[in-house]
């Protein structure tokens, strides 16, 4: 059970990293993850079912998500459609594409041939309990992604991307095309969501067109829970805390599922729990901010 929480936390944490990219780094309210996640699951799932090696299938899922992000960015920048609406348009269109990718079905079972999970389990399987082995494998994948992202954010492009959400003018004065840069950021974030979708499909044993429902809210809840845990301005820590937030979110959801009946909570109430969690995390963050600024405001202003 605990390894189940950890696994889900890691898998959906990768999606939450994508949400963090758009909402926090780019300050761009991008809902596309809701479509990129099932799109990645469908593409990855279909490829795995067709016998494609797992790493390739995961890469394709990342590419599929990135493509979804590019679509949203093109609609937003090209036609001046508001970001939220551009995302919804992409999500709507992707639903039909998912159905086609899955061969006209809404659901594709993967249990029989699931190389991602099988290789994860066989990797350490002999000495470990299989679910712990797959947890370690996913932890490794997540760690690699965190390291790569951290390196990326220390590159020229990465620093510019960080500045873009802060102050677009500073990026323009640095001689960078802000539209191209933002498109790249949105693609990267949704690529992560797509990859996460494919990993989730492998873990669940099936790919489903309705996988995406509520992932944005879950991602946001994870990002915000993480922000409650640690404060920092170092990008590596910021990325890591998204994963921590995701783990905490899954743990809370698990508690709701397992012991919620004691408080009259049924599985039907889980989405409401997610929404309430987002609101509570936001309220707590505001409250913490106010506490933090209380001191200097009461005392003398800094010279």
């Amino acid at each position, binding site marked *: 059970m605990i390894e189940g929480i950890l696994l889900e936390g890691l898998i959906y944490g990768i999606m939450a990293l994508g949400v963090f990219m758009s909402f926090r780094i780019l300050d761009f309210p991008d809902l596309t993850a809701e479509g990129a996640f099932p799109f990645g699951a469908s593409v990855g799932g279909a490829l795995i079912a067709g016998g494609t090696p797992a790493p390739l299938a995961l890469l394709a899922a990342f590419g599929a998500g990135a493509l979804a992000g590019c679509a949203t960015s093109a609609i937003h920048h090209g036609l001046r459609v508001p970001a939220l609406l551009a995302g919804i348009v992409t999500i709507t269109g992707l639903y039909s594409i998912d159905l086609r990718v899955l061969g006209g079905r809404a659901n594709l079972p993967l249990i029989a041939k699931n190389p991602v999970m099988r290789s994860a389990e066989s990797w350490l399987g002999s000495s470990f309990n299989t679910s712990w082995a797959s947890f370690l494998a996913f932890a490794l994948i997540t760690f690699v992604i965190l390291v790569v992202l951290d390196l990326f954010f220390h590159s*020229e492009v990465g*620093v*510019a991307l*960080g500045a873009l959400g*802060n102050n677009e003018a500073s990026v*323009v*004065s640095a001689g960078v*095309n802000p539209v191209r840069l933002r498109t790249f950021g949105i693609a990267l974030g949704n690529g992560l969501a797509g990859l996460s979708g494919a990993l989730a499909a492998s873990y669940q044993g099936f790919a489903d067109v309705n996988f995406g429902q509520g992932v944005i809210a879950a991602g946001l809840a994870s990002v915000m829970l993480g922000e409650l845990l640690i404060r920092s301005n170092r990008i590596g820590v910021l990325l890591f805390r998204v994963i921590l937030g995701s783990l905490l979110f899954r743990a809370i959801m698990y508690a709701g599922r397992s012991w919620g009946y004691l408080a009259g909570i049924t599985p039907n109430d889980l989405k409401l729990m997610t929404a309430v969690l987002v609101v509570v995390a936001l309220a707590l963050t505001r409250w913490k901010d106010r506490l933090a600024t209380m001191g200097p405001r009461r005392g003398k202003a800094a010279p």
Partner: protein
Amino acid sequence: MIDHGKVEIHLEKVEVAFGRGTVDEHLVLRGIDLEVKKGQRISIIGSNGAGKTTLLNAIAGTVPICAGKVFIGGVDRAGEREWMRARYVGRVRQDPLAGTAGGMSVIDNLALAARKGSRRFVPSMTPKLRRELVARVAELGMGLENRLKENVNRLSGGQRQALTLLMAAISRPAVLLLDEHIAALDPRNADMVSALTKRFVQEYNLTSITVTHDMKRALDEGDRLVMMHDGRIIVDIEGAEKADMDVEKLIALFGKARGAAFVQDDALLR
């Protein structure tokens, strides 16, 4: 014929209109001709709505021009977008928050400026560049070299404006545009940033165009003084003529050039 070896900026009959094709169409720049020599420091004054900021915007590419040519370093760059021209144009605006990314560290902001125009997947910081940037920041004399990892939004307005200025200077632009960049600062910080500006312009041998409301500063600083009114350049003096000028004469000149008695506009033209 213009010798582009000596002229850094050359504007030819530049027109900018707002609300084009509507009944509210308004010409903000009505055919500006301006030649700025390499290393020249120009101050631009004029009442509100004269088109001073729009002139800078036309050079930087922030607003599109509807007629004319904008030569920077001998090439007409009127068709280039703002981010493309940023390689040749450095800019400091009035708002101290405008030029830096507040949520990023001092050193990251500097790295962004130092690697102007280059966007690759290579580390933004090398030990060599870091040493160089730290030395530059230390020259500001603000102790920022000890706060490199702090976010810029924790700095004061004056510090932030000084940092923006340094960022604009280290990217070694062909021209430095200063848009009332000390107007939002308190007198002490204004003097400090003003002194820094003078130093950087000399040290980096920059061509600069400064928009200001402060007539005295405009007269004291810079090699050339340009006065604008209603989208036109109405006064353009340098050398002995400028040295001979004081604020009162300037106001009289403004009234004369405008072709009307100078009404109490000195609230705007201090």
